[in-house]
């Protein structure tokens, strides 16, 4: 009775090797699937391209944040030394932009580094303590020597029958339905 209430989240297939995984990812991309993921114990070169992933926007985020940091650092130093508390230091002008470079550089690097770290987490949807693939017991192998692909139900092309046959046709083994009673 509980069986009927279980929800389907997707399909998991195991592949023999990193090369097979790369090849399969390209086939799935070509078949038009979007909502799928590859799971491997180590990063595989060329996987981004094989999965058809776009370039990450992280570089632009980091760049904008770094320049924002630079601007803020100049604002802070300029404002304090020209408006808020002007002091004559070594006979230099109040707004001595040269003197602000080290702090400006430092703040730019700080903002860039922090936005790289947190931006990476947000873009990767991390931290993510739960994922449908955890319904599979076989998936435990992923952290040692297993190569998996999961296709999620929310993909437009997803149907249980077609996707299963398709994964089998491109070399997927131990294909299983990811289902459980977690309510999203």
């Amino acid at each position, binding site marked *: 009775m509980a069986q009927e209430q279980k929800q389907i989240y997707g399909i998991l297939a195991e592949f023999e090797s990193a090369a097979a995984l790369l090849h399969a990812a390209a086939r799935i991309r070509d078949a038009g699937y979007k909502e799928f993921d590859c799971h491997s114990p180590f990063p595989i*070169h060329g996987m981004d391209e094989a999965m058809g992933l776009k370039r990450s926007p992280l570089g632009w985020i980091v*760049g904008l944040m770094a320049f924002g940091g630079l601007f803020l650092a100049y604002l802070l130093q300029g404002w304090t030394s020209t408006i808020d508390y002007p002091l004559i230091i*070594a006979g230099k002008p109040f707004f001595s932009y*040269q003197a602000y*470079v*080290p702090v400006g550089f430092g703040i730019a690097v700080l903002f860039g580094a922090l936005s790289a770290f947190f931006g990476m987490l947000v873009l990767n949807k991390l931290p993510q303590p739960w994922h449908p693939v955890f319904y599979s017991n076989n998936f435990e192998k992923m952290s040692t020597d297993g190569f998996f692909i999961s296709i999620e139900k929310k993909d437009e092309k997803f149907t249980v029958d077609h996707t299963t046959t398709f994964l089998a046709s491109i070399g997927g083994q131990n294909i299983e339905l990811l289902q459980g009673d977690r309510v999203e």
Partner: protein
Amino acid sequence: MNIQLTKNSLATKVSLIIGVLGLALSLLGFFANHEQFFYSWLVAFAFWMSIALGGLFFVLIHHLSGAVWSVVLRRFPESFMAILPFMAIFFFPIALGLYDLYHWAHADAIAHDALLQEKAPYLNIVFFILRTVFFFIVWSVFGRLFYRFSIKNDVTGDAGYITKAKKISPPAVILFAFTVTFAAFDWLMSLDPHWYSTIFGVYYFAGSTMATYAITTLFVLYFAKGPLANMVSVEHYHDLGKLIFTFTIFWAYMTFSQYFLIWYANIPEETVWFAHRWHGSWKVVTLVLAVGHFVLPFFIMLVRAVKRNPLALTIFALWMLLMHFIDIFWLVMPNLHKEGAVFSWMDATTMIGIGGLFLWLVFLHLSKHSLVPINDPQLQNSIHHTG
């Protein structure tokens, strides 16, 4: 697999002819205005020396870090450094022009100058020449040695030569750092013998390395259309673009570090160097350098697509070489033309003269052996390098 440049190729002949013509015109300049000739020669010499030395640095760092990506294009910087002993020939006009170039070489000036008297144990003609001879011996030994290792590895297929190069590169890079620093002090900084900056050697090195990556990029892009078509990919010149970008920033870092401390301390004996370069039309050159050597390249090269586009990268590399020339011009020429920047026709002919012969020697070396180190154990990994 045999990728070789044809002997007596058009490029070899053209560079020889252009070089000889440039030198002949420069010689006329010597009779017209020998002071201008010596200064122009020093700029051209410092420019092309920086490429040869940068080539040595490229190869040293390549072996030191065990780099894989740059194996396929290593022969270009190797050819730059292989001609270091020949570059010593171009030093002779400077040795002849010491009196015109260097204020400290004037005995009467030293007699009335307490500071120059203090510096005389270091800044005197005999020691100056001896130092330069020593620099050239060090560079020639390493340049030829690492070139020999690479060629021996090509011919015999023995990977042990690469291992040897890896073993010698750490002490070599230390000697390289000291010799380049003091060469920059001697040849360029001592033009203004009262002034000193301890960072000056790194400043020259930063621009030099940037220029070497730029000219290596041009060689790679040029040969990528022909013999290296299946060997170098967008990943290789993307990486070269990143390195030009890196050393542009490094140059700016050094430039600013030098300027910043002098600006902060505001001591007349130090600020005078910048005062000369902020005087009259030199101010324009200084600003061109700040914007053209750092600000513009920084924002343009930040974009990934520019580094992956051969045409954009070619234009950028040429631009950076022009900036490197202006950089050295800016270091040297305010000592001659104090009232404002003057570009003499001799600045062009000496650059073309030494440059033509430089390229001729490089092409000669490239045509003698394979264009890629065919027996390097990492060659295949380098060709299939994916960034």
